[in-house]
């Protein structure tokens, strides 16, 4: 009703008193609602059940406090004492007083103790000091960091790289930076602990597929596709990822990258490859599993690697397109909230890259030596060798497993015997909670390019002897 006359208070009050009856009822109800609001208590939706006093007393009475520190037996395993290493580690290592050849450290390119690297590091310490005292966003970015990022990006062939100061935190921060609640991650069962922590932190739905089984992965992808067809609106907002490793730390196998890239484009799943053990190992120039299979890095979404193995530095890197990697500069928890890599370690990594670029034949040599040692060890009775034939990091498992404890004891006996005879190998240590399926205990052997053929022959001989002795001991007991 358009009214052109001016609004007068008296008129308004009069019409208020003559208001329609239903209106009074409605306003009365509304006022009652406001009063109810004022006197209602706040509650969380899932916590509406109230406990009676008796139930409360019962719950309080039955509570047993957990000890602040768990009993010592659980934290320090008496069957697995720590070995003490003295002096510098390199091709040779002094463990528990025994001088041994080092087949335990994953010093693939022999850069630990490299004189050239050490010289550069010394100069770096004199220029920058030791620590950086700050995260990358808060006065912790030095020119060595930027240089290392550029060099890594150029080496791998990606658009941009990002450096983390701790290898474990690299993949554990990269995954939750992209995958959130409601997203789906397809991941191999045998992935390392760092990836498992990253998956846990992401709060996404995790779908495990059998180790290196591309058919199982395809089945799971097809299943997800069927679910998506039923609910396309939901599917449009769910992000799907695949996380695999180039060479798996837990089994030494290589992933089937061409098939994975095919799945990526067929099922629209983003692909993250963790290349800690394949960077500086596979490929003609050591660029990793992408060069090995001749796949351009641009086909992968993210390449993550730890610089603590081949490059003999500390920390890790992520590389890929600028659009992808740049996101981690604000969302990668380990990047934003940890101090940046000490300059001397960044300089060591740069020098490692320099050495790699100058001698591109060390990679083929490394793989050849690894294959040689694997050949020698394959024939040992009582032991099964697991790993890609050219992988410098492979596993030895007991051929006929008995019980997990006895197998572990067997492997420890082998390791101890080898150590006493001058070859240092190690049992792959694992946390009980780490495993998704029951993986057998194994010895993990790492071959360095510094080892000569005689060293490899000696290692094979010592290991064979140790295994025979351990087998005889088992048969006898």
């Amino acid at each position: 009703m358009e009214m052109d006359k001016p609004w007068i208070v008296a008129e308004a009050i009069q019409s208020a008193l003559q208001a329609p009856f239903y209106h009074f009822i409605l306003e009365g109800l509304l006022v009652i609602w406001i009063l109810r609001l004022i006197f209602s208590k706040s509650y969380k939706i899932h916590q509406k059940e109230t406990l009676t006093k008796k139930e409360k007393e019962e719950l309080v009475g039955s509570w047993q406090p957990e000890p602040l520190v768990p009993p010592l037996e659980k934290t320090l395993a008496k069957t697995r004492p720590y070995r003490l290493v003295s002096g510098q580690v390199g091709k040779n290592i002094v463990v528990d007083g025994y001088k041994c050849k080092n087949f335990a450290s994953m010093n693939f390119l022999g850069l630990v103790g490299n004189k050239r690297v050490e010289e550069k590091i010394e100069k770096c310490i004199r220029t920058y000091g030791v620590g950086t005292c700050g995260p990358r966003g808060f006065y912790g970015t030095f020119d060595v960091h930027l240089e290392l990022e550029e060099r890594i990006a150029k080496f791998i062939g990606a658009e941009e790289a990002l450096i983390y100061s701790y290898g474990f935190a690299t993949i554990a921060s990269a995954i939750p930076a992209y995958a959130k609640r409601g997203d789906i991650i397809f991941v191999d069962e045998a992935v390392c602990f760092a990836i498992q922590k990253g998956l846990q932190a992401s709060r996404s739905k995790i779908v495990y597929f059998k180790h290196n089984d591309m058919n199982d992965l395809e089945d799971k992808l097809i299943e997800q596709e069927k679910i998506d067809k039923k609910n396309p609106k939901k599917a449009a907002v769910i992000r799907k990822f695949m996380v695999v490793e180039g060479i798996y730390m837990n089994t030494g196998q290589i992933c089937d990258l061409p098939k994975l890239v095919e799945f990526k484009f067929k099922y629209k799943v983003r692909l993250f490859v963790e290349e800690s053990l394949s960077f500086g190992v596979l490929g003609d120039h050591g660029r990793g599993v992408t060069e090995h299979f001749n796949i351009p890095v641009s086909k992968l979404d993210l390449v993550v690697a730890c610089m603590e193995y081949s490059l003999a530095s500390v920390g890790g890197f992520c590389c890929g397109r600028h659009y992808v990697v740049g996101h981690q500069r604000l969302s990668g928890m380990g990047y934003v909230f940890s101090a940046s890599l000490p300059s001397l370690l960044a300089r060591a990594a740069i020098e490692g890259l320099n050495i790699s670029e100058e001698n591109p034949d060390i990679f083929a040599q490394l793989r050849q030596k690894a294959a040689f040692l694997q050949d020698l060890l394959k024939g040992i009775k009582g032991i099964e060798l697991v790993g890609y034939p050219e992988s410098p990091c492979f596993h030895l498992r007991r051929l006929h497993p008995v019980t997990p404890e006895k197998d572990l004891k067997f492997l420890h006996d082998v390791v101890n015997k080898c150590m006493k005879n001058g070859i240092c190998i190690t049992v792959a240590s694992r946390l009980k909670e780490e495993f998704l399926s029951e993986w057998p205990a194994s010895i993990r052997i790492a071959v360095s390019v510094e080892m000569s053929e005689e060293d490899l022959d000696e290692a094979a001989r010592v290991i064979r002897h140790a295994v025979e002795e351990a087998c005889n001991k088992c048969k006898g007991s």
Partner: protein
Amino acid sequence: MHTGTTNQVANPNTVVWNSPGIWITYLLTTGFMHLILLSMPWFTTSVSWTLTNVLHGVCMYFFLHTIKGTPFETSDQGKYRYSTHWEQIDSGTQFTAARKFFMTTPIVLYILASFYSMYDFTHFVVNTLVLLLSLLPKLPQLHGVRIFGINKY
């Protein structure tokens, strides 16, 4: 949200309506909008009051019950990605002070608009519809409910 070393919550949307001075700011903004409408000479008093009520209700419905998630990145791995702002307030706790405030303001505006429009029937219909639009989505029974799957993802 990363705001340096300040006292932070994972999602500031959950606590913004408890910040000091924000209720007064909200009321003053609504009052200011009403004054602007009132100052337009082609609107009569009744129409401008009803228009205030309608604009307030529609804006409230849009900002509180339509748009979902956060405009900034949160550190809770996307917990509130599909939640409207109303569902995010106080992390879903019902009948907190902020929620009571938001349930009361449409009612107060409705009573005022009815009074100033002289209880005319057309104005009554419009105002009541807008009141329903403002109040019904705020009921705890409709927390997280998406009718016919509209606005679910």
